[in-house]
């Protein structure tokens, strides 16, 4: 009962903040890209995870929008963003984004993301370090750690309980139940399938970039590495791998948190990122 109330409360917050973000479609060299944005101040770009949390303006964006100009683009192939036929690798994603930033006239940005989004952010920062003022990466793949192989997300994705278990520290908590709900409409199934298709194209044959380690030294800006202490999908050892190649990085582990800190430990996560970007 209590958990249901909490779910309803989050729903209400989503409703209240919804009007905050304005969706727009930007043409990026033929790739029609959906982007939501709100707020004033320094440009702050959030790159979403494979969950596709960019499709709706969520409360945590709204919190950031109080002090930054928050931009939340949807990756090619996700939701209503086009251009998936031009995407084969994470590097293609990086090129897509630098062209989006050019199109929007964003010269210097605070850039970060969770999971897949964090990895793309790192790839962008390696290639165009002068464009990234601050870089934050949360629970992101990108490396391969022999001692702790990444589990196969595609193996468990059909099993809602197993998926919830993999993504959350506490799979019984209301946010876990809300984000990975038991019941799904056809439309949600199709959206999820589409999102997983994009992810599969990027990581199916090799779930990391073997060149990342030798390129990260090019990143010159301050870096924040944020990890859920109990991330079972991309364990903290992957954050340690980033850290090894980004000696300037601040390392912050979020206790009682799994793979999705923006949902499982929202307040702590949002504040850590905001503080770093101020």
């Amino acid at each position, binding site marked *: 009962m209590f958990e249901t109330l909490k779910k309803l409360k989050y729903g209400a917050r989503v409703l209240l903040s919804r009007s905050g973000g304005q969706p727009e479609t930007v043409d990026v060299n033929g790739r029609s890209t959906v982007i939501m944005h709100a707020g004033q101040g320094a440009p702050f770009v959030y790159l979403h995870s494979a969950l596709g949390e960019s499709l709706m303006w969520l409360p945590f964006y709204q919190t950031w929008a109080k002090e930054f100009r928050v931009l939340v683009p949807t990756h090619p192939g996700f939701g209503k963003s086009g251009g998936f036929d031009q995407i084969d690798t994470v590097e293609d994603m990086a090129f897509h984004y630098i062209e989006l930033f050019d199109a929007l006239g964003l010269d210097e940005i605070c850039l970060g993301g969770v999971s897949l989004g964090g990895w793309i952010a790192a790839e962008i920062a390696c290639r165009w370090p002068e464009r990234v003022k601050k870089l934050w990466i949360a629970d992101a793949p990108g490396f391969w750690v022999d001692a702790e192989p990444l589990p196969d997300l*595609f193996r468990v994705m059909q099993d809602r309980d197993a998926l919830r278990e993999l993504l959350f520290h506490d799979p019984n908590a209301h946010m876990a139940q809300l984000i990975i709900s038991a019941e799904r409409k056809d439309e949600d*199934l*199709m*959206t999820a*399938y589409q999102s997983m298709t994009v992810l*599969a*194209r990027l990581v*199916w*044959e*090799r779930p990391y970039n073997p060149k990342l380690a030798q390129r990260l030294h090019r990143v010159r800006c301050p870096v924040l590495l944020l990890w859920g202490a109990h991330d079972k999908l991309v364990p903290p050892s992957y954050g340690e791998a980033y850290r090894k190649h980004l000696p300037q990085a601040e390392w912050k582990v979020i206790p009682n948190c799994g793979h999705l800190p923006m949902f499982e430990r929202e307040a702590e996560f949002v504040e850590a990122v905001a503080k770093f970007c101020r």
Partner: protein
Amino acid sequence: MQCYFFHLMPWPFLPDDFAETYDSAWVWIPNSLYDPVKGHTLYQEYINTLSYADELGFDGVCVNEHHQNAYGLMPSPNVIAGALTQRTKKCRIAVIGNALTLYNPPLRVAEEFAMLDVMSGGRLVAGMVVGSGPEYFSFSVDPTHARERWREALDLIVKAWTTPGPFIWNSKHYFQRYVNPWPRPLQQPHPPIWVPGVGSLETIEFVAQRRYAYMGIPFFHIDVFKRVFSLFREACEKAGYTARPEQMGWGVPVYVAETDKQAREEFEPHLWYFVRNLLRGIGLSPPGYTTPRSAVAIIKNQDKFLAVQKTWDDVERGVFAVVGSPETVRQKLLHYKKELGAGVMLTGCQTGTLPHELARKSMELFAREVMPYVRDQESGIRSQGSGIRSQESGGENQESGVRN
């Protein structure tokens, strides 16, 4: 109707508690469950069974490709087909098929199929398949480009067979400086092409346009076949011609015994071994392997698949298998032959644990007491060499003249 004998080469020795202990007979099923000593005998028996089908007068035998699983022990069907070129004399050898995207470069398929065609004296049927979902897990091959790559690979193979080499091939996924396969296929312009499918409209339309043959793979409800063949006929009309029966294949397990009762008693336990163990995990579908719409449709149509059937009644009602006395099987097959309009039947009875002698008995009864009645006049005259029965990409019918 042409009668082919289909074999998966299933593994019969899974532990009794397999279904309770393991979630899949595919991809991650521990290969410690495989025993190479038993495997040796099994291959012998299975190859014997297939060459027996030739002796009994089946029009062809079918082998297919699956990886890292207990359902079908032919990761390379071409190896088995190679053996069959030497063990069979008259029947067609249908490899249905090679999963083109798993061959890099797919030129390898052009080569191996040409070898088989030459070795068999022009008896090969060349199956070109996208490969089932689990294969993409097994080989870590990108499923999101599966269909695009499959088409490119198919075009490359057909061109390699029909255009004098060497030539350069350049497509999105494949670049080949020298396409020049030795040997070339014996059947001209190339062996008949069959495409096994499970009902995706995209594939149906493609096969219709190319005038290849569409093989509905077994283990689906009869309604699925009805729908698929009706869509196929429509697609052929749209492409400007009327589908020929040989362009449509119906895959279904068939078991014949002396009486209906005996047939069920002998076959049923072995069908359940197959359903409860070997079909576990076959539905594994990697994202991007199909369109989101088809993916949802597949999830919703799961009740049309053999894996979820619970009772013998379900099996009979859905015609997931045709089991009975010669008279019963004859009647059912004639009925569905008419209803489906299919000109090729892919029968088979080895579901894993069926004793080899029962498999042979059923095949004998089928060959003697069913086959002559369900065959069309034309396709029945096999000894005269009906040559290449499937149409080719150009749409011409050729006589090979080499067989026999």
